[in-house]
């Protein structure tokens, strides 16, 4: 589990665990059938991701927000000490950036030139209690990361082609003395008309009919469940 010679990914906003588990399963880390055990007792797919149950692909517990960037920095420093030239990636929610530890880590990563690190933010503007701008505005988010000393890219996180292009760009910017940040502008519930433009679906599941309706609007997911 020391990840030498591998790129590493840390999910800091652990509450999007269904997406994480789904990607891990379809990437071969564990059987897709195990997804059915999500949030069930005696399972490895805990409500929030953890190393505690030995689920392959998960390297850190997350759920309590704001901690993943620090952990990723530690892993990135270890890579430098080990002469390992692979990269460390993180994903954060935008609401999560209200946690102070994020900014301790942001200052450290730039100040100590942790340049084998690419962080990404799911910049959807929503959190549990409502719009981020109503709960606690993030202000000039791009300007903040630039001011902290990061190399900042922006992209449309719902456009896969644009995102892949931006990630390739981000990768090309590593090793140049600065950590790299990718702000992904996204729409929560993208492609499902009754989920978009609202924070209401942040922490709830669709019922059977809603699921059917949602999948019918997303042809790429048909047949997957």
């Amino acid at each position, binding site marked *: *589990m*020391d*990840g*030498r010679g591998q790129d*590493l990914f*840390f999910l800091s906003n652990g509450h999007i665990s269904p997406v994480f588990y789904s990607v891990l399963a379809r990437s071969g880390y564990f059987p897709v059938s195990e997804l059915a055990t999500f949030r069930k007792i005696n399972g490895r797919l805990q409500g929030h991701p*953890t*190393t*505690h149950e030995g689920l392959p692909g998960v*390297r*850190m*517990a*997350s*759920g*309590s927000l*704001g*901690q*993943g*960037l*620090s*952990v*990723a*920095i*530690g*892993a*990135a*420093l*270890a*890579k430098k*000490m*080990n002469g*390992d030239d692979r990269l460390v990636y993180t994903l954060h929610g935008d609401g999560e950036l209200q946690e*102070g*530890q994020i900014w*301790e*880590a942001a*200052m*450290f990563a730039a*100040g*100590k030139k942790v340049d084998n690190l690419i962080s990404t933010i799911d910049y959807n503007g929503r959190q549990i209690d409502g719009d981020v701008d109503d709960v606690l505005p993030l202000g000039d988010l791009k300007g903040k990361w630039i001011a902290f000393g990061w190399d900042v890219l922006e992209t449309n996180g719902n456009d896969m082609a644009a995102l892949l292009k931006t990630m390739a760009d981000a990768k090309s910017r590593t090793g140049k003395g600065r950590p790299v940040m990718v702000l992904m502008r996204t729409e929560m519930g993208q492609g499902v008309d009754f989920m978009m433009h609202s924070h209401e679906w942040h922490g709830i599941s669709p019922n059977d009919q809603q699921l059917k309706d949602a999948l019918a609007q997303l042809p790429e997911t048909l047949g997957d469940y």
Partner: protein
Amino acid sequence: MSNYPVLDQKDTRSGFGAGLHELGKKDPNVVALCADLTGSLKMDAFKKEFPDRFVQVGIAEANMMGIAAGLTIGGKVPYTGTFANFSTGRVYDQIRQSIAYADKNVKICASHAGLTLGEDGATHQILEDIGLMRMLPGMTVVVPCDYNQTRQATIAIADLHGPVYLRFGRPKWPVFIPADMPFEIGKAQRLIEGTDVSIFACGHLVWRALQAAQELSKQGVKAEVINMHTIKPLDVEAVIKSVAKTKCAVTCEEHNRYGGLGDAISQVFTTHTPTPQEFVAVNDSFGESGTPDQLMTKYGLDTPHIVAAALRAIERK
């Protein structure tokens, strides 16, 4: 009665610094992190000799705990250094999620614990840290008693895979443990054999317990003194064995009476062998500014208090 001459007067934090430096030479995977207290934690020698394995994080303890957790993923053995208050209470959730629950091999090394920090006052004198750390599943809690033992413990915890809380302090304190005395995590040390009362102590209070045993012997009381340098896992067998003979106990710690060594030993008594117990500990209060000696006296942690507690315990048999 065994005799423990004072070999020197040294601070336990310097024992940590010496142990860390030795460990750095021995194990290339050992890395050290500090939150702007390198001098206070005596980490200078390590920093000087191994600058590439020393991480200065600035005044950002939460970030330090997370970075330490991440370093373990690359096979490193990180030692974090800051004051006990900032090593525990300030970063409890970071330790809980990123280190303990995630089972990361981080050594949390905490100086300036308890009242003997002195003049800085209650903001810095944490008296709850042993309790906080003991409650975390999988956490080992070690509270060595003098310079030599802190040095030994610093080296020993590197070989134990898993999170460890190592607690030590600021003041110069008698050095009385011979440098070559065997030290094993989880194995209590009987320093004086006795039959009338068992005195279980940790940290700075071990020396005070030895002094109390000497005072008690003048009154014809044979006290057994046991150094409980590991609070978790507790050496339950040593506790049971001692009170099977003495039938009463005193617990001594530079900590709140709730949550620390006394509580841990109480659990042994209630589940294995009901035994009268007296607590020498801070009575559920914060500290204040003062010299270490003044504070230890005011808050009931000096030798006369241990003697009185021992006599009360004997009375309750």
